[in-house]
């Protein structure tokens, strides 16, 4: 996990960097907004920690600029206690969280862990259920055979495995797997469930998706699904 820390106070920058490195993160340090932006151009980061009050370009400008460039890495802002407007502006500009100075080192580290957790846990992690394995790095579904899934098929099966046994309603799936994109409808979900049923069968798996068109669907190990 790689972090970009932008903080103009040399001592604080040094202390934070040391603490984050000690925590197991790889850290690039910047001392002003422009330096932060040029590092952002060169490298990808899993988290950005931006001080708001910085020379050349302040933290909010850096944030606006990176979001404009479609950089979606999570951002933690460091603000002074009195800067309510800054915090609001920062969150509105696309920050994910903020921390008011002075803060406890413990809390900063906990927030860094929390904000990188989602990626750590869900990226490149293989999921298993019953006799199948779903490889996150290759979208490969493996049973007695292997097959490659499309992005949406992968995301749908991932949702089913992560909440195995729980019935997921069609509208839940439309919201969480399709992010309610225009054009996605009950039939879309049904079609993708049908695709997955065929593909589970193709890898000769005992795992099946139960449920009727338009209703709730859930994953079952060894359930018998009939066309």
């Amino acid at each position, binding site marked *: 996990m790689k972090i970009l820390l932008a903080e103009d106070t040399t001592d604080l920058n040094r202390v934070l960097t040391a603490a984050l490195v000690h925590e197991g993160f790889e850290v690039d340090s910047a001392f002003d907004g422009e330096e932060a932006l040029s590092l952002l151009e060169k490298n990808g980061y899993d988290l950005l920690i931006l001080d708001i009050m910085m020379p050349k370009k302040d933290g909010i400008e850096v944030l606006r600029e990176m979001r404009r460039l479609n950089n979606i890495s999570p951002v933690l802002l460091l603000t002074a206690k009195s800067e309510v407007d800054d915090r609001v502006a920062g969150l509105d500009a696309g920050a994910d969280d903020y921390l008011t100075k002075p803060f406890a080192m413990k809390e900063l580290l906990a927030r860094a862990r929390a904000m990188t957790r989602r990626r750590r846990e869900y990226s490149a992690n293989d999921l298993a259920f019953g006799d199948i394995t779903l490889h996150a790095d*290759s979208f*490969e579904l493996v049973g*007695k*055979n*292997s*097959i*490659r*899934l*499309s992005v949406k*098929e992968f995301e749908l099966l991932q949702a089913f495995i992560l909440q195995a046994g729980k019935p997921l309603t069609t509208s839940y799936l439309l919201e969480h797997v399709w992010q309610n994109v225009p054009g996605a409808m009950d039939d879309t979900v049904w*079609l993708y469930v*049908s*695709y997955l*049923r*065929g*593909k589970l069968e*193709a890898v*000769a798996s005992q795992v099946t998706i139960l449920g009727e068109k338009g209703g709730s669907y859930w994953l079952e190990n060894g359930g018998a699904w009939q*066309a």
Partner: protein
Amino acid sequence: MSESIYGSHLKKLENVREELTEAVMLLRRKMAEENGMDPVEHCLSRIKSEDSMREKCRRKGIPEDEHSALEIIHDAVGLRVVTSFLRDVYAVRDMLVSLPSVEVIEEKDYIKKAKPNGYRSYHVILKCHGTVYAEVQIRTISQDTWAALEHHMKYKKAISGNTALIQEELKRCADELASTDISMQTLRDMILDQERT
């Protein structure tokens, strides 16, 4: 070469080849009438050439004679049926194994269980009229495309050192095509379902 490795049996082989081809033809007509769609994209057949048969005998370390060609090796007569959809593969298979003149010697479902390199196809060895062996390969267009293209690559002879990467990527292509085959079958089922209701 003085005499055919098949001896005087070439005519018998030709007859079996024609009989099986005819059976596939009849199924195509029947299914086209019933479902409005010919399940077969194309159907090829051949008698294994003199040279290939002798080469295969040598490879297997068996004598280049009639007995080897007709009794030990089972693909003197070969049929390849290429279907549009996945389910059609099994329709062709079911028809062939139920022919009265035919006995099933061996079946290998490389669709249900693909070969490690990604190859998918349904193989069945038949014994026709109690005497002539024939090998039938049935697969979808996508599976046939993969097999044909993979065959053309000749990467096994290359010594560039990235054979492992090539094999891995070819398998990925096979698995992606297999995935598409199922999606197309699913779509077709859905359309047929809507037409029925």
